[in-house]
């Protein structure tokens, strides 16, 4: 599987969960949102996005539903489950701890 190079392992899951926590959306919307929000910094190819979404679904963290979209088009909408919300909290927590620890290290002044 081609891994997005500048994305820390495992954080893609967290980002996807976060997006879906905001509102249910389909895969295409997720890919656009990723690009918009991160301003092309986080490059996730569509080829990695879908397997990641399917993995989250299989874990029971998100659930999918076929809905007719605004333009009368059928699309698969993903939304967060209770289990997913808990997972997101856990991962966000971990991320917060990790990133603050790392930034503390980086900000150490040279003597």
């Amino acid at each position: 599987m081609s891994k997005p190079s500048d994305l820390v392992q495992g954080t893609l899951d967290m980002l996807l969960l976060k997006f879906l926590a905001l509102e249910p959306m389909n895969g295409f919307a997720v890919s656009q949102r990723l690009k918009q929000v991160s301003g092309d910094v986080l490059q996730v190819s569509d080829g990695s996005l879908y397997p990641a979404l399917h993995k989250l679904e299989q874990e029971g963290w998100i659930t999918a539903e076929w809905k007719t979209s605004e333009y009368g088009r059928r699309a698969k909408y993903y939304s967060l489950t209770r289990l997913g919300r808990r997972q997101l909290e856990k991962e966000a927590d971990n991320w917060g701890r990790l990133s603050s620890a790392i930034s503390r290290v980086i900000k150490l002044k040279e003597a």
Partner: protein
Amino acid sequence: MRHEHWLFTIPLRLRSLFRWAQADQELDDELRDHLERKTEEYVAQGMTQEEAHRRARLDLGGIEQTKEKCRDTRKVNWIQDLIKDLRYGLRMLRQNPGFTAAAVLAIALGVGINVGIFSVLNGLALRLLPVPRAEQVVSVEQIFHGKFLRNAVNGGSLSSYSEYLNYRDNDHVLSGLLAYEPFVHATLGGGKMRELLGATTSCNYFDVLNEHPSQGRGFVASDCAAPGENPVAVISDELWRGAFAGDPSLVGKRIILNRTEYTVVGIAPQGFQGTEPIPSSFWAPITMQTVLEPGSDRLTADNLGWLALLGRVRPGVTMEQVRSDLGVIAGQMDQLHPGRKTSLAIRRATFLDRQMEREHLIPAASVILTVFGLVLLVACANVANLLLARASVRHKEIALRLSIGASRWRLVRQLLAESLLLSLIGGALGSVLAFWSFTGITRLVITRRSLLPSMLRLTFAC
């Protein structure tokens, strides 16, 4: 938490297992929908339709590869894959009947013959007798040394009647010691003419073995009170069903063995066929020997070995204690016979106990087993070779599969499934062969039984 997890995931697993066609269709729809939207986006940015479509596909990476990756996230995917692999493997095997036949036959032959030989050896010489608490049952043999003349029937290490009584009455380590004369031929009379093989036994036979007749009784001490006086018999369940059609009132009736009438006092439990490799159909008290085998009086022949001894060791007594206790008795008897020196061979009883037989059978069987083990190895090497030869032919196929999105592990699994299929078919056929070879070898042993005793009949033990 865990339960909730299953609540969410089990329906998913079931769905991907049983409705995978639908799941696949949805995956297809999802990706196509994505491609369409992406194309529209690129068109809106000013690309031509064609260019936009191309870019959209490029972004997705190979469509088939992406689909496969999505499928791989389904946890039960491997079950489907396995089924698919097996189905495909079956097709491959059917397309190459020559290869399949060769490989399956090689495996089947190797497995079948080995299992057959080992089963015979295991049943005869390794497994304990199939009687209750068999670990307590030991066989007792006398091995004679020195210049000493000994008469023997059925093997030089058997005991005479007086020796048996001596061991039985003087030991302190056994809860019971039985004696029996194996391979007694008898003709069943009374319109049912049949050649039978049975045994004359000491009257504690069924008690010591703890095999109580399913109908009637075993022998009691009074059955062995006086030579020739008590014509009673216990017959095997097999004989009861075969020759007497399972007559429920047979116990108490008379049957004719070697022109003498015997009262059937019991029917042995189903499956019990004595303690020799060749099944017994009847048992008579040891004191009936002179009547069953007219013209020879073995009961009074003190220097004639004809009885096999089996003892049940008392709980808590070790084999060493048994050896030394019975050894004392043997030593006392040695003093009465100048030049005689006896050592005892005592071992946990199997179907094949006698030293002479074991000395012949076990090395022979080991050699045969080794040889056929090597045959099996050669068979495996052959199959491996065949597979290897085929692998080089299949290079193209494998390259094609890799290029359309199969992962290496997936390919390995597919090839493994084929090998698994081969070995399963070979193994199944091998089991059938094993059954045949087992019954074949057993029949060979039984029909050559007349050879067996004569081969082992020795007049002198040195």
